[in-house]
């Protein structure tokens, strides 16, 4: 991991100088603020079973669909187009470190954006005086579960984005590929459950892996305080796989 922290600092700097970062950040916070406001409005209209935090994290896919492509599409595609990627690859730095630094920089920014949404329950709790409302608005268990889920799923989403960026020289194509990939990963896995499979037999054995891939089920488990190791294996191994593929592509197409 030689040079990792120099490259990480450089990548964070590149992110902070990129207009796409600010577009993604502003869109994310405005959209999530509006979603939180709509959720609270719903809570004032009728009683709900879940806490606002659980409901809030249930729409994680909305920002993921545009924030992740906006943050990742530039990472490798643009550097390859400009040629700056080859100047880095001729230095004594491994390709994995180059790709990993990009991944970590974007991942940290993704976490930062989600951490900003912590302000919503904090502010609403501060504004109300009712003790019961305060407990419901700032439920530490649901918030922690939701954030752990977002942090975990974020590894897979961002590594997928970086992989898409390593496939092409065009930022636009990289962004569209990433959006499609995320859609298949999040919504497509849900469609797998619609496949009519028998309960038993060789085909029936596919039920378990299909359920294993359900991102929404993982979120419900985490929000309910259930920390299962299987999603950790799924997201972390998936993200590692995408990063390794990205490294191979960068080396092949440098």
């Amino acid at each position, binding site marked *: 991991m030689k*040079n990792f922290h120099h490259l990480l600092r450089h990548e964070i700097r*590149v992110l902070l*100088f990129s207009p796409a970062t600010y577009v993604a950040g502003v869109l994310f916070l405005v959209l999530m603020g509006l979603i939180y406001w709509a959720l609270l409005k719903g809570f004032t209209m009728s009683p709900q079973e879940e806490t606002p935090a659980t409901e809030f994290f249930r729409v994680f896919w909305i920002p993921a669909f545009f924030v992740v492509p906006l943050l990742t599409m530039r990472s490798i595609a643009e550097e390859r187009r400009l040629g700056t990627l*080859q100047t880095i690859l001729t230095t004594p730095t491994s390709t994995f470190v180059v790709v990993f630094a990009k991944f970590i920089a974007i991942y940290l920014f993704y976490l930062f954006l989600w951490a900003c949404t912590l302000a919503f329950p904090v502010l609403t709790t501060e504004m109300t005086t009712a003790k019961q409302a305060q407990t419901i608005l700032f439920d530490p268990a649901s918030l922690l579960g939701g954030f752990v889920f977002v942090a975990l799923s974020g590894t897979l989403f961002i590594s997928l984005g970086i992989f898409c960026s390593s496939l092409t020289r065009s930022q636009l194509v990289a962004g569209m590929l990433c959006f499609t990939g995320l859609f298949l990963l999040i919504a497509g896995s849900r469609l797998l459950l619609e496949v009519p499979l028998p309960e038993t037999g060789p085909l029936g054995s596919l039920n378990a892996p299909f359920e294993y891939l359900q991102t929404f089920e993982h979120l419900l488990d985490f929000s309910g305080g259930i920390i299962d190791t299987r999603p950790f294996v799924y997201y972390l191994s998936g993200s590692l796989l995408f990063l390794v593929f990205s490294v191979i592509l960068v080396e092949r197409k440098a």
Partner: protein
Amino acid sequence: MVSLVPSIRAVDLTKRFGPNHAIDRISFEVGAGEVVGFLGPNGAGKSTTMRILTGLLSATSGEAWVAGRSVARDPDSIRHLIGFMPENNPLPEDMRVIEYLRFRARIKGLSRKIGKNRIEEVLDICDLKHGVGRKLIGNLSKGYRQRVGIADAILAEPPIVILDEPTIGLDPHQILGFRRMIQQLRGRMTLVISSHILPEIEKVCDRSVILNRGQVVAAGTRSELRAIFSPGQTYELRIDGSLSEVEMRVKAADESLILRDSYREPGGNVRRITFSSESNSNLVPRIIQSLQGPGLPVIQEIRIRRASLEDIFLAATKKTWKSMPNPLREDEDRITGSEDDQE
């Protein structure tokens, strides 16, 4: 002490992209401390060769060694040995020159203190002091950008520096600056410079490797190349008198002299006449003697014109063009042949 191990050695390097050979079994050597020019028309395979030498591309077959280490088998160690400026000199537009060099120094493994000293040194060598260091790279002129690229390539004091088209787009002042910069680096590191701007290579390089259509068509010093591709001498005379008399007398002086070119200068009887000879001996005294006497044409100026790198390059590339099969040229030959037949 000069190292006996060549800085760069390539043996039968081949790179294919699908059915096309970008380079085809090229072999050459670059000695330690040499300044070598890599010449060739566009698409000759210069950049591909350089990318293979820096480990950015892998060769389809053949092998390259940098300071005795195999590029294919030991790519990590050769990255410490080579400073590379790619074609078009890609640089991040939104960084200041000093920030960029600091970042490059760190990822090239220079400590903060050594890096600081080296940055000062390369800013000086590349004439980037006096406020340029604080400027955004995106706001720099082409010449300054090239200097930043070269500063980056030499930053970690690598023993071998490869510059791909460093003079492209530079104005005459900037080209002079580039020449001075190369003179400062001469002897401190091995330099490989690719270009198709031949006068530049001629002025700064000790030796040239000429590529054409993915093959090395010539390699050597200018005098070695001249002996192969442009043997003999060319004499240029500025003379006041009749052309036929000059030709007759000069040919009588030495039979090998052949009239190549002649034109009359405007507003007078002075002509510029070019003779060539396959003989390498100096025929100037004989030419002068043949034209001495009352009533004979008066020599105003005589000089030997040596073949420039451009002449050598044209001769070398023309030779490969003729020796290689090409359906288009066959068509041309056929057309010419049929015209001859008609005559």
